[in-house]
């Protein structure tokens, strides 16, 4: 991993300045390439987990909204049945009345 990758990572990550300075100091003051490599790996792992957390957050919010929509739709459907039953009653009464009128005519 080169510093080219580290720089944007530090620039774009929501870390506080202290921690960023930690990283810079650690890397600049150590001459052990493996240590530097591992520090960078650690940072990347953190960044990845952090990004993933945000991603899960987005997906979760999306899913929650979908879940709500589905429940709302289901609720509306159940209300729809009630509404239809009212309409049925109106129609039935109309039919009864017509039959009654018809009988009266007869």
């Amino acid at each position, binding site marked *: 991993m080169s510093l080219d990758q580290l720089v944007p990572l530090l620039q774009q990550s929501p870390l506080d300045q202290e921690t960023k300075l*930690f990283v810079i100091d650690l890397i600049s003051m150590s001459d052990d390439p493996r240590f530097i490599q591992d*520090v960078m790996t650690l940072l990347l792992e953190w960044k990845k987990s952090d990004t993933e957390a945000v991603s899960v957050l987005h997906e979760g919010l999306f899913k929650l909204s979908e879940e709500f929509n589905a429940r709302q739709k289901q609720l509306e459907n159940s209300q729809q049945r009630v509404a239809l039953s009212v309409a049925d009653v109106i129609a039935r009464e109309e039919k009864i009345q017509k039959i009654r009128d018809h009988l009266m005519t007869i």
Partner: protein
Amino acid sequence: MSEQDPSTKPGAEPKQADANSATTDEKFRDPFSDWTTEQPAPEAEESTDIIAQSFRDKIKNYNPGIIESRDPKKLPALQQLIDEGLLIAYSVPGVYVNKRKLDQQIEDVRARAQKMKPDMIMGRSPYPGAIETLVFKQLVKEGLLEQDPQSPRNFRRVAQTKSTQSEVLPKPPSAQESEPAPDTEHPTEAEREQREFDRFKARIAEAAKEFTGYRFNITSENRALTQKVIARLVQEGILISRGSETDFTIAAAAPPDLNPPEPAPEATPPLTPETKEPPVDEQLNQAIQVVLRTKNSSISHLQRQLKLGYFTASNLIKRMEAMGILGASDAKKPREILLETWPPTGAATIETTSTTKEQPQTPEEVLDAIELPDEPEEPLDAINLDEEPLDAEELPDEPETATPETERFPETQEDKTDLPQIAQFKSIAERFRSTADAFIRKYIKGEVEPEPVPLNKTEVAKTVAIKLIGAACSLGGIKAAVDFPIWLLQKLKFTKDERNRIKQAIDSASPIRERATLVLDSGETSLGWEIVEDFGDGTVRIAKNMPDGKREGKIVKEYELEREHPLNPVEQKKRRLEKAVMESKYLTSEKKQELLQKLQDTVESYATTLDDYKEEHDNKIVRFLDQAIETRVKGVTALKETLNSAMTALGLKAARSLAYGAVALYERGVKVKKEIESGERTEGFAKELIVNGFKETWKKFSLQEGETKLQKAMNFAQSLGTVTRFVGFSSIALSELIGEGRIQDAIDQTLTATEQKGIVQTATDNFQSNFDHYANKLTFGLVGTETTPSSTGSETEQKVDTHKAPQIPPPPKEQAFEPTTGEETPSVLEVATDKTTDQQPGDIVEFEPMDVIEESELQGEALKAATVASGDGVLRIFQRQLTLNPEKFGFTGDTSDKKAVTSWVRKNALSIAKQSGLMNQNGWLGIRGKAIGKMAIGLELGADGKPEVNFIDVQTGEKTSMEAMREKRFIYDYSKPTEPPTELPSDETETQTTEELPDTSPETQLVDTDDVSTGELENTETFTGELPDLDADAKIYDASESSTNDHVIAETEHSDSGTGTPSSESTPSEPTEPIPEAVSDATEATPQPIRELSTPQGKVMFTYDGDKVTGMRMDTEPTSEELDRAAARFGTSETELVKANIRKLPDDNAYWKANAPTQNLMERMNRETRIENTIKEMEKQGLQETSEYKVLKRQAGVLKGTIKRAFNQLGLEHKIMDVEKATRDVTEEIPTDKDVDQVTVRPSEPVEMRRQPVKEIETQTSESEPQLKPIEE
């Protein structure tokens, strides 16, 4: 983009192609490989992507049979499409066959061939193209056709299918298995199932590119087989059930949280491109790339770029919005693009990570670096401690210090069923933590040993001090105080883009917004409208088929569309139906009324339920967001601590100090500059920055700035940080201050507290309890040592003690922030550990080390006598022990003379308590109820023959420290509110001192209030009689001597309690009962304050004002279910209450107006129910006589009265029976009217004071009975 080569003859003979296929393949690939090596990679990748995309578009939109191109620049793109499976390289160079088209053709021809009878001839065109050639080749391979030997151009249907597999051109599973050939051998059931499984698997894989769901068409014929296949698909994780028989979610296209969990290894490896599921499908990825590249987020643009339909493009845009890539739609301007690149970091990170891991020196080295040590408990020896090993216990715990937050993650899990994503958060945090752990074990625990540096003792101390600087500061909560703002900042600190994305995501997840958006998504469809054109500026053309067959269209803006249609279809329907009902000529008025009522109820029910859903949804979002934030904060904390540890372990301390200093200086510079610009500062920049900076810091540091304690505390913490950063003070001073102090205990305690209570609570608690003392001591210590950087042994000891101060329990609040003067009275515990009570006040007190764990010698009866029992105070515990074995502790008289023994016991118990510092005129050591049976305060003879006080953990039998007991909240310090005398009383001045005590002790005030002050001595005798052996002589002993002791005893007992005691219940002549071993506090005159009580519904915490109970609160918020249960307890429900409220409010908006009073009443019922449950729990635990119980009982009565009246007002008289029944239990406690509306619990009062109001209440209750009688009847 492709070039049609007219010179290409379609008659390229397949035979020739076959013969030269290998050669042509090589010819084909050579230029590509040469080209790739010659071209600069980044530009090539970019142009290749664009070309490949154009080919993709072309294939997708036009589905051509072949693509011809010999342009070398396009070869990589074509190769890319071949790799993707979209194209097949034909044997003729520059000719590529569209795989999709080929598959379709094969399907068609195969279907026709299967219908043919054997030996029938199928003709082929005279100049077959590539597709046709390949189709026949494939069918020949399959054995369905064979070339007619008489006419090579024609093919003949073979009698039996050979069912061979193609080698040159793999047949797509869907085509292969879609319709079994009629002449094939009869397959077995298993084979059929396998075929179906393969077929569906291929189809699903294809569908996953565009869709997330898959619907099966199940008929009566294929039901059994299809269901088997579906079960297998689900079992293998290809599909995810949606709870429907036919509809499923495709796992490969589902969001990560929907995918079935895979068993993760202990140390979860980092995600690789192979293992990570793409969060978005290919089409969405393309759309995102287009939007980000062109910076144009309009739907129409996306349509044009990707050749998509409106709805597809619209959906993609909305998904991008939900993902936080785009902003919300705005009619006046295009959606804001919130991201610069995609994927933001994920893909790049993955790639770089894998690259990173492929660069080790040798694989073995990398393996060594990653694997964890076999012995995780291996102590840290990164620093060569050759001269004098430091406290090794401190070092191995560093990893715990590094990741304190992540460890308590499981405790914060809640409601996993509701939010499966939380499990994702957990795995994220744990995955990172495992990486951090590995890092720590490698670099902190010494797998990689730094070069041994010979260090002398001072240097080692400094190193460790720096290493532990954070933990050291956590003593007394200072670290928490310093970290708290950082934590808050971190909690809130997302980057701007992230904030926007999250905001957008939350907005889009909001029910209201989503409902509004639905109008565009599907609402217009249901209403007949559909969007036919999008102009890209938020304006769309919509059209609708009218009943007369004409098509009506209009141009509207999106927001107008939303406004045009009401959002609530149920409400719409209701209005229409109401109109129909009202206008109906065939309904009677009664029937109309009934139907209207039915409609009204339906809509109300809908609104109520929907509100519940909304609330639940909002709560879920809040919790979900909390989890996400918490996860991120934990990750950041772990990272910071890990890096911090690594830095200090590697000796890079100077860098850290410099870094701190640089940051502090920079921040201050920015601040000063702004203030100068705004006119707040008038002097020059340099002077303001440096000179005044020091002045201001010192002001804060010396607690001169700030009005409240909290302000002072924050200022102090801030200035401490500034000082340490600027001067590098920490690395020198703390190392010397800490020395070999018992830092480890403090770290452990802090970590434990943090794990149990969380950062905020710990910080708050630490602040409230420890800051005052810590600030005084630390300030004193720092001031005293500031000018002595080079420490001698004695100086070091002193400083060590000053820094130990945070471990010292806090002094009484009333002493807080008193100036540390020479006249300051030492705190109780200083005296406790100070063997020489004549030490000057204000001196730094040396503590005895408590590292060594000793077993107590107390056993059997002696231990029992020393063990805390119900109602015990320190004196009583001492008295029991002295009475048990008076000769051992120096009683020289006749042990059969009970009077003499009693007198001696009392005197000595008090003396020991004072000498051991557990009691002085400023206060005393209080014992909490939770110490009963768990803690003992034992008296054992010391080396000098004097009694020593030891705190003993009864369960382990080991001696322990007072601090440990305090940490367990077994003991506390009670301090009297008045100004203490300046001198500690000695035994000689005891009489005088104790004469003053009654005037200042709470008990005395209580007695005075009750107007029984004249009975002081009698009262005190009440307590003297509690030792059974002494009862008979209680009134006989010398009052002038014993009254002193007794009074202190009484005082001590009262100090343990939270409330007053009915002194009238105890008279001197009353024979007192022996102390029961496990009797509740209720049997005692002054029970311990309960403070916390665990109940089945959660933890109840009582609040106190001084010693008086002022209320209770629970650590859980009521859920809607709990509210419903509470309402059901009163025989009603929320719906019923709403209706009752509506009846009460005959208004068009009655429903909405009814909501608030209903909720209010529901809350009251719930509160009453919670109190009742707590009361039952207390009864179960035998706490009926505690003041907490009585207060709760009274409050329950108040609430019941309130609820009863509310029921009356709502016309729910039929419910009054239930309320009455519930109220009957507390008839005596029914409050006055003025109490009824009281919400918070009032401070408890002495029983004598309460009795009068109770009588009044009883009278009022009896007066109100006539009102209730008719209802009962």
